[in-house]
C-alpha cells in the first residue's frame, strides 16, 4: 500500500472529516497539511495499515485534539469535541464508501462554477476561497448577513444539482 497515493486519493474525504470537526477553513487546512506530512512520514517508516481510511481518520482526530488543546479552548468545548468526534467518525465510517470520484466531481464543479450568476459566484468565492465570515461578506457587498446566508445556500444547492446532473448545464441559484 502506497500511503502517499492513498492519502491523495482520499484527500477530499479526509479534509471533509477535519473540517466537520474543526469548523474553520484555515485551521482545517493547517491540520490537513500536518496530517499529510505525518502520513508521508509513516510511509518512510514502513507503516502498512489494514484500513487506510480508519487509520488516517485516527491521525486526523489526534491532530484536531492537539489543535483544540493548543488553542486552550474551554473544558466544555473539549468535552463536546469528544462527543462530536465519536458521531462524526461514525458518520464517515458508515458512508465514506458511497462517495464518488472526487477528481471528476471537482472538475465538474469547476464547470458549474463558471456557469453560476456573477453575484452568486462572488459570494461563493468570498466564502470558499477567501474564507470570509458571513458578516464580513455582507459588509463587503452591502447586504444583510441573513441575505448572504440564503444566497450562499441557494448557490450551493444549485451547484450540487449541477454537479449531480453533469457539468455544462445551466446553473440557476
Amino acid at each position, binding site marked *: 500500500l502506497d500511503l502517499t497515493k492513498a492519502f*491523495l486519493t482520499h*484527500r477530499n474525504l479526509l*479534509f471533509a472529516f477535519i*473540517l466537520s470537526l474543526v469548523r474553520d477553513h484555515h485551521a482545517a487546512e493547517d491540520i*490537513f*497539511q500536518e496530517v499529510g506530512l505525518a502520513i508521508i512520514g509513516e510511509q518512510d517508516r514502513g507503516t502498512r495499515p489494514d484500513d487506510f481510511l480508519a487509520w488516517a481518520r485516527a491521525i486526523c482526530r489526534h491532530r484536531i485534539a492537539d489543535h483544540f488543546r493548543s488553542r486552550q479552548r474551554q473544558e466544555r468545548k473539549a468535552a463536546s469535541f469528544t462527543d462530536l468526534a465519536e458521531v462524526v467518525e461514525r458518520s464517515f465510517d458508515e458512508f*465514506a464508501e458511497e*462517495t464518488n470520484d*472526487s477528481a471528476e466531481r471537482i472538475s465538474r464543479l469547476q464547470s458549474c462554477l463558471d456557469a453560476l450568476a456573477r453575484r452568486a459566484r462572488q459570494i461563493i468565492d468570498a466564502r470558499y476561497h477567501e474564507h470570509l465570515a458571513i458578516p464580513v461578506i455582507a459588509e463587503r457587498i452591502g*447586504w444583510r448577513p441573513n441575505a448572504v446566508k440564503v444566497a450562499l445556500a441557494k448557490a450551493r444547492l444549485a451547484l450540487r444539482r449541477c454537479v449531480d446532473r453533469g457539468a455544462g448545464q445551466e446553473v440557476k441559484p
Partner: protein
Amino acid sequence: VTAIDRFDDLIDDYLLDPTADAGELLSRLRADPAHRRDFVRRMLFESELMMAVGTRPAASVVPTRPPTAAVRYFALAALLLLSVGLGWWLARWWEPTAAVPPLPLPVSPYRLHEGVVLVDGEAGPLREGAELEVVGRQPARLGLPDGSSADLQPGTLCRLGRGTDGQRQVVELLQGGGSFRVVNGERDFVVRTRTGMVTVLGTEFRVSYCGARTRAMMVAVTAGRVRVDHPGGSSLLTTGDQQVFSQGNLMRRVVRGLLVQVEDDGELVVATGRGCLHRTYPLAEDGAVWQADRQLMASTLEPGMLIELLFDGPKVRTVRVMRPSLTATILAVDQSRRRLVVVENDGHSPPEEYPLAESAVLRRGKTVIQLDELHLGMEVRLSLVQDWSCIERLEVLRAAGEDP
C-alpha cells in the same frame, strides 16, 4: 422537505459559527443514519467547493523541490527586466490627475426590517422596479419611503415603485399578499394587482392575490377607507369590510361586526372597527340567518351578537351569527410578532393567522401563562375582538396528544 431544510440549516449554523452549540445536530446525527449520510455528503461538498474555487488543501502537502541556483538567477533577472520596463512605461504615460472622490453609494429608501427577500432572484438591497420574493417561512416586514409599512406573507411576489404624480407609492402584487399600514399623506398609496387597484390615503388593510391561479383579490380593511378600482367599477370599503374581487366581478363581500340594533324596517345597525363605527345595512327580503348549520328566524337576531354579513349587491343576503369565541388548534406560534396560526376545529375552515392584542390574556385553567408556553397542536378557545382582527383572550383546552 422542511425537515431536510432544517437539517441543512443546522449544518450551516454549525459550520458558520464554530462556537455555536452543536447539541441538536449531534442528537440528530446520533438518531438517524440518513442524517449521518447527509452530513457526510455536505461536508464532502464543502471540501470539493474549497478545492474547486482555488484552495487545494493537498497541493502544499507534497513537498516541492527547492529551486536551483540557475532558476533563482533567471527569476531575479526576469524580475529586474520587468521592473525596468514598468518604470519606463509609467514615466511615459503617467500624468498626475486630481483625485476623484468615490461616488457615494445610493441608499435605498426601502428597508427590510424582518424576513428574507430576494431581489430579482438574488439577495440584495431592495430597489424600485425589481421583483421581490419573500422566501423562507417568515413574513417580511418592509419599511417604505413614506413611513408606511408592508408585512408580506411568505411566497409573495411584488414590485415596488413610486408611481405617477398622483401616487406616492405603488406596490404591484404579482402573487401572495400582506398587510399594509399606510401613514396619512396627501398623495395616494396604491396596491395594484391584475384584478384591480386598491387606493388609500391612510389606513390599515390586507390584500391577498392569488396571481396566475384564479386572479382573485381579497381586500380586508382593518381601519380607515380604501377604494378598489376593478374592471367592473369602483368599490369603497371601510373598516371591517372584506371583499373578494375576481376579474371584473365582485365575488363576495363580507362584513363582520357586532349587531347593535335591528331597525323596524329590517335594517341592521352593526358596529365594526372595535365598536367605533356604526353602519346600517339593509337585509334582503329573502335574507337568511344562520348559526352554524342551523337556520334561524330573523327575529332571533339580538343586539350584542357577533355577526357576519354576506351581500348580494347592496343588500344583505345572509347573516351568519358567529360564536363569540372559536375552538381551534395551534399550527404555529410566532413569538417575536405575537401571532398565532390556528385552524378552527369545525373541520372545514382554512388556517387563519391572528395577532394577539397587547392586553390579551392567556390562561390554562386558572393560571395565567406566557406566549412561550403555547405550542403546536394545543387546542385553544379564542375570543377575538369585534372586528376579528386580533385575539383578546385565549384559553388552553388541552395540549397536543392530551386527553380532553
